[in-house]
């Protein structure tokens, strides 16, 4: 099965080709079937690879497909690396990708861009698979750029809306900033190690002796790329705006898969980070700051998708915190559980929006519990999973991260728990305002409320089951479980774990777990008290809020800050350069050459009078002059 790994990205690519070229001629049913079928096929192969890899002793297999770039010392084969990490990501991408394709068939049914949507979605899956499968940084970079492109295309899917287009451009440009760092990182890797293939680079890095500042530089540059793609401070502002795209896109690209590319990249390069404690410290601090910062913004948002978007940014922060404190398995574990419950929550939100005829403001919802029972139940399960309710998937992964954070630095742990409390509060705020109480929308909307079709509810149910039981593969030892995931991923992080020693007594772990659970329960109680018991509603537009609340509601005015501090000066410089350098200097030189030729030829032309007598005269004078100069 491992030999067939090339099929995994190829199937979605074929799907994209067929739908992209002939989509308009095919019926909607056929388009949906081809697109979902391609991803399902990829999922089947991935599943086979996963189990085959689990069964054999050779844990890292490189499949060479063809020689891609050969130039001088540089030789880059187009090859795939199949190891536990990439095979796990394959499963997440194709599995969740399939469910979201299925969901989209129902969700996008009435959209005129139906086939275009599926073409983009398949193309995205292709690039994402390329990203995780590549056996060197360049293939990863190709996938990295490709998913960025698809993200751009899908955020601006409804391109007739200017605001959506701006959101798409914002996402693309913000990512470009990060990509520059990533590219520089790859170049530095090549300069330092003379290769960009994972195997060679990590093998050399393991035995790297001496000044590790170059490794720190590489790690930090790569991390800049991760910051852009995975929406970390200060490059996170594109992600909330990316919610302009259709909801399945938010679920697949901007929650479950693409944004975790940064985490994949860092955990792939784990040995480089492990060798540079400073870089790890930076990763952890950026992660925890993002987790807290985004969580506070999430507390005050009223758009159902915006809350989930900030929640995603916040959860990505947790993953980076995990990477920063050396809990690589924890980070990958959280990527997986997060993919389950965040995809579920987004799809649930999509189902709510579908039922509400396009309304996204939670102030206009309420009491939806009895109208859309399946969505309600699955959404509740997703909420419990994300807040880390004991036994749900989020509990185990978050617990693992926080335990490692405690071990590393108590302050990081405290901030992490604080963020978790806020996560609990805003998620239950969202849940209560949407599903509890009484309906606050218009009469028309109430009349139109309906549960979504089967193609949408089935993915919800599957994801809800995964959100509940997904944590079981990573039950910590202290709870008497067996951490299957850790055992599975062990070969990937082996070299790092030799260098990072973990020791935490069972008592401490119990206490940490207890604290996390009680904080969560407290936050849940506060949310219940405020939004169910006292029936508080978020302030309407235009009502005066107290200054802090207002600042948070306005997202700390970060967008405005960027606008004023970065965009306006750049625009100003651009304008100035345009007026002075372009119009005056460059145009001046070009026009100067033109007028010089005209001017000089105007003078010379006078000699060509057409008067033959004059020509002869000049000829004679010239000959005489030549003779004189020759003679004397």
């Amino acid at each position, binding site marked *: 099965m491992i030999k067939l790994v090339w099929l995994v990205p190829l199937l979605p690519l074929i799907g994209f080709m067929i739908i992209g070229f002939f989509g308009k001629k095919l019926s909607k049913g056929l388009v949906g079937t081809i697109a979902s079928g391609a991803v399902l096929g990829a999922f089947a192969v991935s599943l086979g690879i996963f189990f085959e890899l689990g069964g054999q002793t050779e844990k890292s297999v490189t499949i060479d497909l063809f020689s891609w770039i050969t130039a001088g010392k540089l030789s880059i084969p187009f090859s795939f690396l199949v190891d536990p990490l990439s095979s796990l990501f394959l499963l997440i991408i194709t599995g969740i990708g399939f469910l979201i394709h299925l969901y989209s068939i129902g969700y996008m049914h009435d959209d005129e861009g139906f086939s275009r949507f599926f073409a983009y979605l398949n193309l995205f899956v292709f690039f994402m698979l390329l990203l995780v499968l590549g056996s060197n940084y360049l293939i990863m970079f190709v996938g990295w750029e490709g998913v960025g492109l698809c993200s751009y295309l899908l955020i601006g899917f409804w391109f007739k809306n200017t605001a959506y287009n701006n959101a798409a451009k914002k996402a693309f440009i913000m990512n470009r900033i990060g990509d520059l760092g990533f590219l520089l990182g790859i170049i530095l890797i090549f300069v330092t190690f003379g290769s960009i293939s994972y195997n060679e680079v990590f093998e050399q890095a393991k035995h790297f002796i001496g000044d590790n500042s170059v490794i720190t530089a590489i790690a930090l540059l790569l991390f800049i790329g991760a910051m852009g793609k995975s929406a970390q401070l200060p490059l996170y502002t594109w992600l909330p705006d990316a919610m302009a795209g259709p909801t399945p896109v938010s679920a697949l690209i901007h929650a479950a898969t693409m944004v975790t590319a940064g985490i994949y990249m860092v955990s792939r390069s784990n040995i480089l980070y492990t060798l540079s404690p400073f870089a790890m410290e930076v990763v952890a601090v950026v992660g925890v700051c993002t987790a807290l910062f985004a969580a506070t913004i999430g507390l005050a948002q009223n758009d159902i998708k915006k809350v989930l978007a900030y929640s995603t940014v916040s959860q990505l922060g947790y993953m980076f915190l995990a990477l920063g404190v050396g809990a690589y398995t924890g980070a990958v574990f959280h990527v997986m559980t997060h993919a389950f419950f965040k995809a579920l929550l987004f799809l649930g939100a999509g189902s709510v929006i579908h039922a509400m005829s396009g309304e996204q403001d939670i102030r206009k919802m309420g009491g939806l519990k009895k109208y859309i029972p399946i969505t309600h139940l699955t959404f509740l399960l997703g909420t419990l999973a994300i807040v880390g309710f004991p036994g749900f998937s989020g509990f185990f992964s978050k617990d693992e991260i926080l335990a490692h954070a405690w071990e590393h630095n108590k302050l990081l742990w405290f901030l992490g728990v604080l963020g978790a409390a806020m996560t609990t509060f805003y998620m239950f705020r969202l849940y209560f305002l949407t599903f509890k109480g009484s309906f606050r929308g218009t009469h028309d909307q109430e009349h139109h409320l309906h549960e979504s079709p089967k193609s949408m509810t089935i993915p919800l149910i599957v994801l809800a089951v995964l959100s509940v039981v997904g944590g079981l593969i990573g039950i910590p030892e202290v709870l008497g479980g067996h951490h299957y995931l850790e055992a599975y991923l062990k070969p990937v992080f082996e070299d790092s774990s030799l260098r990072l020693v973990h020791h935490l007594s069972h008592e401490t772990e119990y206490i940490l777990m207890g604290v996390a659970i009680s904080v969560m329960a407290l936050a849940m109680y506060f949310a219940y008290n405020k939004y169910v018991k006292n029936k508080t509603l978020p302030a309407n537009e235009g009502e005066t809020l107290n200054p802090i609340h207002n600042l948070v509601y306005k997202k700390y005015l970060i967008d405005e800050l960027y606008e004023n501090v970065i965009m306006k000066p750049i625009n100003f410089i651009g304008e100035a350069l345009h007026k002075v350098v372009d119009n005056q200097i460059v145009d001046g030189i070009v026009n100067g050459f033109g007028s010089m030729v005209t001017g000089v030829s105007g003078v010379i032309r006078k000699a*060509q*009078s*057409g*008067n*033959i*007598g004059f020509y*002869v*005269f000049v000829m*004679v004078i010239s000959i005489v002059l030549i003779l004189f100069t020759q003679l004397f």
Partner: protein
Amino acid sequence: MSAIQIIPINWYILLSAVLFTIGVLGVLFRRNAIIIFMSVELMLNAVNLLLVAFSTYLSDSAGQVFVFFIMAVAAAEVAVGLAILMSVYRNTKSTDIYMLNKLKG
């Protein structure tokens, strides 16, 4: 010593130069095409004179051969030139070369 050689070579050169200069000035300053034509002939003959003079002084017959050659070519040239002149006259009813400025851009 023949009669020609009694006169010093300098005189021949001087005469030839004077004839040539007259020819050049004629070409430059006269407007009548026929006179210009004659001036050209004058220049050719100035050169011929020089050639035969040197040929005699140096006792080298090659110069005289050259002169015959030039005469033959000049005769051919005159035939063509006069034909052109005829055609010019038919078109412009004049032999004034300043009438011939039609090629001026």
